[in-house]
């Protein structure tokens, strides 16, 4: 694998995706009345085009790129503060937010996400963090529910 650059690895992944896509295109049922173009044609064209492009990408020597490794500054940080870890934690936080939004409610879930992530990213002025997070969440909530009449879940807060 050492000799394979990022382009080659990505091209193999894309080729596998395109094969799966083409297979699924062949599973699309035919319309009972004959038509010049059925629902499966466009997906088949897209699938085969992607397969051809993935092969071209495998041999493409221009625009070879590798994802940046952790910075020197990042290497000195504790593992939970490293840039890659920040992306992972943020993703987990978004997933948790999605699960808790309806039961907990928009205001509490959003306040926790906004305040919590800013704290995790390294912002240490807790009062400013809380006031600004609370302000943004409340203003958004009021604009959405009162001005734009868009429903947002109340959750455990009754109003």
């Amino acid at each position: 694998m050492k000799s394979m650059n990022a382009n080659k690895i990505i091209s193999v992944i894309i080729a596998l995706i395109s094969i799966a896509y083409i297979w699924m295109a062949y599973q699309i049922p035919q319309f009972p009345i004959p038509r010049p173009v059925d629902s499966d044609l466009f997906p088949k064209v897209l699938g085969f085009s992607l397969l051809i492009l993935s092969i071209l990408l495998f041999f493409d020597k221009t625009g070879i790129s590798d994802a940046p490794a952790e910075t020197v500054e990042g290497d000195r940080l504790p593992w939970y503060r490293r840039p890659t870890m920040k992306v992972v934690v943020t993703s987990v936080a978004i997933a948790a937010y999605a699960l808790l939004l309806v039961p907990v409610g928009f205001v509490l879930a959003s306040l926790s996400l906004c305040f919590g992530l800013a704290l995790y990213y390294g912002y240490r002025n807790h009062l400013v963090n809380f006031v600004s997070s609370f302000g943004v969440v409340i203003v958004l909530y009021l604009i959405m529910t009162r001005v734009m009449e868009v429903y947002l879940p109340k959750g455990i807060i009754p109003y």
Partner: protein
Amino acid sequence: MESLTNLVYGFQIALDPMNIFYVFIGVFAGTVIGMLPGLGPISALALMIPMAFTMDPASGLILMAGVYYGAIFGGSTSSILLNAPGVAGTVATSFDGYPMAKKGLAGKALALAAYASFIGGTISVLGLMLIAPLLSQVAISFGPAEYFALMVLGLTAVVSLSDKSLIKGMIAAIFGMMVSIMGIDLQTGTERYTFNHIELLDGIDFIVVALGLFALAEVFYMLLRGGSKTQKRNIVGSLKLSRQEVKEIAMPITRSSILGFFTGVLPGAGATIGSFLGYSMEKRLARDGDTFGQGNIKGVAAPEAANNAACGGSFVPLLTLGVPGSGTTAILLGALLVMGVTPGPMMLEQRPDVFWGVIASMYIGNIFLLVLNLPLIPYFARLLDVPRPLLLSMILIFCMVGVYGMSFSVFNLFLLLGFGLIGLAMRLYGFPAAPMILALILGALMEESMRRALQISGGDWWVFIQKPISMWLLIIAFLSLFMPLFKFVYRRIRGF
């Protein structure tokens, strides 16, 4: 004369107090979001769609148009003060804007940018007003074959002009089309790629993809880059220009505005290419061209006039043909479709309120941009001091509200996360996101046009070649895509 009558009608709509308020909000929000490094007009527009969604189409597009040119202008502030362009279209501004700021002339550079943007924007609105109705009359004769060819051209132009690899651009476009055709096929009722998920029957909302690929991916990218510290910015200082300086920049601004407008009309070009063309043209024409890059005022005025003019120009294909020429106008088209308006040649007749209201609002928006920005520049600049951790967590909340507020679907929040990670991977490995978002908007429309054309021709594929307009559009599309390849092969042959 007819255009003037229509423009008066447009002003009646644009001067409605609520619409004036929306222009103000749009320009203000666009300037603020565009100023933040990393967040450009696409992110700004995607973040504002949920707000526009509840309005009537004319007001919604007036708001979005304000966000668009506000974001283009806002990008210049971070280019000048931080040398960190918020938007690709303002990269050229930083070449001379930042050296001016380092010399203590940041205020002058920002004032120059404001004046140039105002003039560029105004000239482009004049162009839009004159050219759009003419193009609409031509486009009225277009059938499905011509539309299919036009969309192919729009897509290939964006792919071929993306600064990254051509193959990667094409892969991104194919992915976009794959996402766009998910759900129930409206012509046959057949399910495609729904994976037996009820949430996918209507396909994937474009707002989910737009916010994921641009706003959320940008947050991830900033986290990965480790840029949590706020950059030190230059002090703004005096905003005054001398009479001599005004004289010096008058012609470069006019020339670059006209050039920028026509660049914006072309599919695939737009603000970035327009600003670079404006900059290099003035560098060549100027007697003191050798001082470009060291803080020459013409080096700020030319790209700023060109990028704002290109922004107005990009509305020509969007409003008259219904085919966006860039990722940014693709978002605008998506927003219009969400609001129930299909842009195209019939829009002038069917929705003159939207068409002329937006054009008239652009005049007002440009005045707002100038009036708002000149006195408020020093205060706006303070936004750049907002701590990065607070900023990032707030952008996340905006993304969540945007997606949930429009779809009320928790499933879409997971999709948003997925597209955010895909967008991050695309950025890291050099796949351009603009072709993907454009293909997402155009994919389903392209398929529909192709099928309608084939139904009319009884399944004869030659229909795309037999019609002259469609044939020429396809030839240009083919050349735009394969020209770099031909050049490469030609050079290799000559080299050996």
